[in-house]
């Protein structure tokens, strides 16, 4: 398959791995921010090809995982309101809130539908004029433009029964928060591929300049990731942290200007609560005043009830890269995909799920 096979070439991957081993002398602690990268790394067994000097940590880049319990409780409370249809991407269905999940709420008779795009949610709104259709707006800068587009379209078409519960989160402030926390000393970051396709590379400049952390934007195939690791190791060996792109077929320095314009036109930046990290200033989006009639939190009176956190779950530490999934006492024992304790085991892009599903069998 064109544009995929080249980036899965076994010979090329091995050559890159040899090159990394040959040039790596200093300890290199690298974090892949993005859950998509975590899955690709585990699924292809990339860590097995790296020399002992290169250590890979998984970051908080799974939108489902970083959504806090109170936010999930809000969505569940919305789902229980009469005449409300909840539309959501499939991976939210199983995530436990304080006391329930959308999957369970659906079994209890609430109208919860999986959609593949915000356009599907708009269509459901058009087809059900007597009901309120709420889209669960979870995601990073990759999903934000599609939600912005849907809101603009609903505005143009004067669709009166479409709402968004805006739980969108922004990547660069979270990276900065991790670096500021200083719990994990990072030498390099594998910057997210799809997020960077939207926001470009300028937001990362400060990490290289102020924190001395090497930054390389990577694609999602094995060769992409190994190439990014090689570039990071070169920077670390040279003691010169900069921002580079390994994913040149997808990412430009300036990002996607059109998408950014749409996002800036529809959303205002606000603080957001991240599971495991806490409240980070300027790390979330809310709908601008102009579009506030589409804001589900304003249109409905929501009573999510008291919040309960899950005991013994290390999702927070895992999201910050302080612990690996195997270091959690519950991992693969109490906490398994069919009975997940925390969201990192639920979401397809969650670190625990990726380690469990695709882990090196020696580590289980």
């Amino acid at each position, binding site marked *: *398959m064109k544009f995929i096979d080249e980036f899965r070439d076994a010979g090329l991957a*091995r050559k890159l791995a040899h090159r990394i081993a040959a040039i790596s002398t200093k300890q290199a602690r690298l974090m892949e921010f993005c859950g998509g990268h975590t899955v690709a790394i585990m699924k*292809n*067994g990339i*860590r*097995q*090809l790296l020399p002992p000097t290169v250590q890979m940590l998984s970051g908080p880049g799974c939108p489902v995982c970083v959504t806090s319990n109170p936010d999930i409780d809000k969505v569940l409370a919305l789902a229980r309101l009469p005449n409300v249809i909840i539309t959501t991407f499939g991976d939210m269905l199983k995530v436990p809130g304080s006391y329930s999940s959308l999957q369970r709420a659906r079994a209890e008779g609430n109208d919860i539908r999986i959609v593949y795009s915000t356009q599907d949610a708009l269509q459901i709104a058009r087809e059900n004029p007597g009901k309120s259709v709420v889209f669960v707006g979870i995601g990073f800068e990759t999903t934000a433009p599609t939600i912005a587009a849907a809101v603009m379209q609903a505005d143009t078409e004067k669709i009166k029964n479409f709402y968004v519960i805006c739980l969108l989160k922004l990547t660069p402030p979270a990276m900065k928060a991790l670096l500021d926390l200083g719990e994990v000393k990072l030498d390099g970051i594998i910057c997210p591929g799809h997020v960077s396709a939207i926001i470009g590379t300028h937001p990362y400049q400060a990490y290289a300049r102020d924190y001395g952390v090497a930054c390389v934007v990577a694609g999602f195939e*094995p060769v992409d990731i190994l190439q990014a690791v090689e570039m990071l190791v070169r920077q670390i060996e040279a003691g010169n942290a900069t921002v580079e792109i390994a994913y040149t077929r997808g990412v430009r320095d300036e990002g996607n200007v059109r998408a950014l314009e749409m996002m800036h036109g529809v959303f205002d930046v606000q603080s957001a609560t991240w599971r495991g990290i806490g409240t980070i200033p300027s790390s979330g989006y809310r709908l601008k005043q102009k579009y506030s009639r589409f804001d589900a939190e304003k249109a409905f009176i929501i009573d999510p009830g008291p919040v309960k956190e899950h005991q013994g779950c290390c999702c927070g530490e895992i999201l910050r890269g302080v612990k690996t999934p195997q270091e959690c006492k519950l991992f693969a024992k109490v906490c398994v*995909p069919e009975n997940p304790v925390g969201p990192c085991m639920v979401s397809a892009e969650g670190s625990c799920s990726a380690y469990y*599903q695709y882990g090196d069998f020696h580590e289980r």
Partner: protein
Amino acid sequence: MNDRILLAHGSGSKLSHDLLEKILVPPISNPLLARMDDAAVFELAGKLAFTTDSYVVNPIFFPGGDIGRLAVCGTVNDLSMSGAEPLYISLALIIEEGLEIAELLRIIQSVKDTCEEAGVQVITGDTKVVNRGKADKLFINTAGIGSIHRGLDISGSNARVGDKIILSGGIGEHGIAVMSQREGLQFSVPVQSDCAPLNKLVADMLRASKKINCLRDPTRGGLAATLSEFARQSDVGIIIEEEKIPLHDGVRGACELLGLDPLYIANEGKLVAVVSPDDADRVLKAMKRNKYAGAAAVIGEVTAGHRGRVVMKTKIGASRIVDMPTGEILPRIC
């Protein structure tokens, strides 16, 4: 006759009899069914296999098949995977009020064609009609009986260290075909369901070798579930190579796009065989001659290490666990 199924069609009235005598029975009739008694009565001797399965696929027509073909193939294949020769099946329909009779006719025709292809007979059946909204157009249950040749012992717990794993063809075609039809997803390389009766393929294989230890059709849960079941039941390790697993371009593209792993996607016309190493070539050759297994390949083997687990060598030369699927992957595909 009305052009839609009414509740009255299930009431035991004249309308019910008309439905049976004019629509449902004629296409699939045979001497045992035509008696229309409460039970089919027949004689069979020897070792038998008996199985049942229900079909609730949505939509009822999908590229490469329909719920009728699926209901026959599913039961025929379950019998075949225990080494049985399928003989008779039952056919029970739960119809939602309002189903178009033309659609029902197409389904029954498809049942007939698939039964003929597989060489099995429907010898008993049942029809119920439920209120609109209480079923989704049509649900089908089939049960089947088959006879097993003496001396044959095929089971998921029979895999032995050194055995070869043979897969009959590309994976994930049924799941992707149903999903793309249901969700209105259109891919540039269209995918057809692989839904097919595999009893003749199994017969070809058993003629080639008696050293076939396990057979299973990787339906829900896909190849990953079937191999994990073998590893657990037989308490052995299984190692497969990603590179050797046949995959249709359309399935691959759809999986890339939707973030799905083809190892976990349902098949309805594929089988996995665990075969003694000295007979693997003969079995593979016999399979490749059958129209449903032209792309058959040896994809791995049974090992003494990592008991109870399936490990896959990835294309770039690393290895990873292939675990049982968990939870809902795709809703209602069979």
